[in-house]
C-alpha cells in the first residue's frame, strides 16, 4: 500500500533523497531549491539517514564535492536552481565527461539578469548540451517518482551519466498537493546499492580520473558519452517498466494526453502540462479535438518517438519556457521541428515562448494557443512561427 500524503515539490524531493539515503549530499542554498538541502540536513541531524552532508561555500564547490564523492565510489546528490547551476557550469561538464552518475534536483528558475527568483526553464536549457540526462516533472508526484528512478538510470553500466530531475520553481516546488509515497523498504529495494565497477578508493585498481586528454583520444571519449546518451533511452524504458510494476504509475519518454484522435496539440514540459490537460478537457466538451504531448525525457531527446506521435496532427504548438534569443525560436521547438524534419513528418508547427520570469501561465493563455492552432488548420497560414504567449501588450 502506498502512503497518501500532501507535500510540496521540494518536500517530495527531500523525502525521496531520505529514502535513497545517498553516501554524500553537498549543496549550497539558492531559492527556490533551498528547502531541499534544508529538509535533508534535518534528516542528517536526526540520524534518519547516514549521509555525509557537506555544507559547501558555493555551488561550484557543491558540484565539485559530489564529483569527488562519486569518483571515490560513493552515491552523491545535490540540488540547485538558476544562478547556482550557472556557478556549477565548469563542473557540470566535468561530471558528465568523467561519467559520474550524480543525481541532482534542479528546481527551475530564471537565470539572472536582471535578478528574478521565479520560474522559467532558462537554467535547464543552458545545460541541455552538457551530457546530463534531463527529466522534467509536471508536479510533486513526478518530481518524486523521477527521483526514485534516477539512480537506476544514471548508474546503469551502459549509461554512467549524471542525471537531473527538473520541476518548476515555486509553482510545484512550493505548492502543497496530494502525493502517493512508496514505502521506505520498497524504495530501498528498487533503487538498490551502488556498486561502481571502477572507483578511486579501490586499492586493487589504482587509477587516475580526469587527466589530460588531447587530440589523440578526446574525440573518441566524447563519442562514448554520446553513445551512453543513446543507450540511456533503453534503460529509461526498462526502469519505468519496473517502476510501474511497483507503483502502478506508468512513465515513458513523454505522456500523450488525448493525443490519439487529436487534430491539434501542444507540446510542453513541467507544470504547464497540467494546466494544458484541464484546457484539453474543456475543449473536448466543445467537440474540439485538442491533445497534449508532455515531454518527460528531454535528454536524451526521443526524436523519432515524438515525430511518430505527432505525425497525424493538423497543427502543433511547442511551448518554450525559455527564449533562446537566437532569432529563430526556443530550444524545445527547435528539437521537435528538427525531429519532424529528419523523420519526414510534415506538420505545421509554431512556437510560443511563455512564462518567462514567473509570468503566470493561465488556462486562457493555453486556450488561445489552441484557438490559434484551429486558425492555422482552417487557413493553412503561419505568418510568424516564433511567437510569445502572455506578453504584456
Amino acid at each position, binding site marked *: 500500500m502506498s502512503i497518501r500524503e500532501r507535500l510540496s515539490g521540494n518536500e517530495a524531493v527531500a523525502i525521496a533523497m531520505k529514502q535513497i539515503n545517498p553516501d554524500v549530499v553537498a549543496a549550497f542554498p539558492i531559492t527556490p531549491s533551498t528547502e531541499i538541502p534544508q529538509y535533508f540536513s534535518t534528516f542528517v541531524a536526526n540520524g534518519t539517514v547516514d549521509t555525509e552532508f557537506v555544507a559547501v561555500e558555493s555551488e561550484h564547490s557543491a558540484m565539485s564535492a559530489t564529483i569527488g564523492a562519486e569518483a571515490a565510489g560513493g552515491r552523491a546528490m545535490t540540488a540547485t536552481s538558476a544562478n547556482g547551476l550557472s556557478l556549477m557550469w565548469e563542473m557540470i561538464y566535468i561530471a558528465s565527461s568523467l561519467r559520474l552518475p550524480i543525481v541532482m534536483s534542479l528546481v527551475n528558475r530564471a537565470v539572472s539578469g536582471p535578478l528574478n527568483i521565479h520560474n522559467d526553464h532558462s537554467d535547464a536549457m543552458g545545460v541541455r548540451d552538457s551530457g546530463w540526462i534531463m527529466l522534467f516533472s509536471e*508536479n510533486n508526484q513526478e518530481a518524486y517518482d523521477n527521483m526514485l528512478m534516477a539512480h537506476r538510470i544514471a548508474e546503469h553500466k551502459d549509461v554512467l551519466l549524471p542525471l537531473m530531475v527538473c520541476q518548476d520553481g515555486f509553482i510545484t516546488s512550493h*505548492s502543497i498537493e*496530494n502525493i502517493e509515497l512508496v514505502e521506505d523498504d520498497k524504495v530501498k529495494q528498487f533503487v538498490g546499492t551502488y556498486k561502481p565497477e571502477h572507483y578511486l578508493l579501490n586499492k586493487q585498481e589504482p587509477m587516475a580520473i580526469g587527466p589530460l586528454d588531447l587530440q589523440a583520444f578526446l574525440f573518441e571519449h566524447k563519442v562514448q558519452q554520446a553513445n551512453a546518451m543513446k543507450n540511456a533511452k533503453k534503460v529509461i524504458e526498462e526502469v519505468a517498466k519496473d517502476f510501474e510494476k511497483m507503483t502502478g504509475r506508468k512513465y515513458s519518454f513523454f505522456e500523450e494526453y488525448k493525443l490519439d484522435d487529436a487534430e491539434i496539440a501542444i507540446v510542453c514540459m513541467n507544470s504547464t502540462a497540467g*494546466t494544458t490537460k*484541464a484546457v484539453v478537457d474543456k475543449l473536448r466538451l466543445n467537440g474540439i479535438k485538442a491533445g497534449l504531448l508532455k515531454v518527460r525525457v528531454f535528454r536524451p531527446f526521443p526524436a523519432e518517438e515524438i515525430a511518430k506521435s505527432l505525425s497525424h496532427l493538423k497543427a502543433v504548438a511547442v511551448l518554450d519556457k525559455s527564449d533562446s534569443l537566437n532569432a529563430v525560436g526556443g530550444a524545445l521547438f527547435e528539437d521537435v521541428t528538427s525531429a519532424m524534419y529528419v523523420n519526414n513528418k510534415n506538420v505545421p508547427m509554431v512556437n510560443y515562448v511563455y512564462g518567462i520570469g514567473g509570468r503566470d501561465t493561465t488556462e486562457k493563455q493555453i486556450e488561445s494557443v489552441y484557438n490559434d492552432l484551429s486558425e492555422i488548420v482552417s487557413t493553412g497560414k503561419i505568418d510568424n512561427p516564433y511567437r510569445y504567449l502572455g506578453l504584456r501588450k
Partner: protein
Amino acid sequence: MSDLIEIRWHGRGGQGAKTASLLLADAAFNTGKYIQGFPEYGPERMGAPITAYNRISNAPITIHSNIYEPDYVVVVDDTLLESVNVTDGLKSTGAIIINTTKPVEYLKKVLKGYSGDIYTIDARKVSQEALGKYFPNTPMLAAIVKVSGIMTDEELLEDMKNSFKHKFAKKPEVIEGNMKALELALKQVQKI
C-alpha cells in the same frame, strides 16, 4: 463534472494568510480531498499585501496557475479593502469573508457593488478573547470552512486538534486557545 472550489486569500505579510491556506489544505486533505495550497511569492515583507490560494476537489487537480475566478475570497486585513481589488474575478455565486468591524455601508462601498454574499467576523476580538494575542489566521480558517462548507464544524475541530498537537508540540499551552479561537469563529462569522 466540476466540484472544484477555488479560494483566494488576501492578507499582509506576517498575519499568517499563507499558513492559514496551508492549514485549510491540510484539513481538507484529511477529509479525503485533493488539495492545492500555495502562496503567490512576491517581494514579501512584514506588512506588505500578500496573496495565497487553495484549490479543493474530489478529483485530482492538474491546473497550475494562480486563481483568477475564485469561489471565495478571504480578507485577513480590512486595510487592504481600499488598496487591493479583493473582489476581482470573484464569482457572484460565491462569497467574500472579511475580518472587520467596519460598518456595512462602508463595506458595500469599497466592494464596489459585489453582488455575492458578504460575511464578516471580528477576528481580532476572537483572537484576543481566546489567545490573548492577535493571530487572525486561526479564526479566518474557521470562517472560510463555515461559509464554504468544505467540511463540517466537527471535522474541522477534530482535525485541527490533531494538527495543533503536532504543530505546537513544544508549546502545548497555546493549543486550547487556538481551539477556542476556532470554536468562537465558527459561531461568530455572519452574513451581512
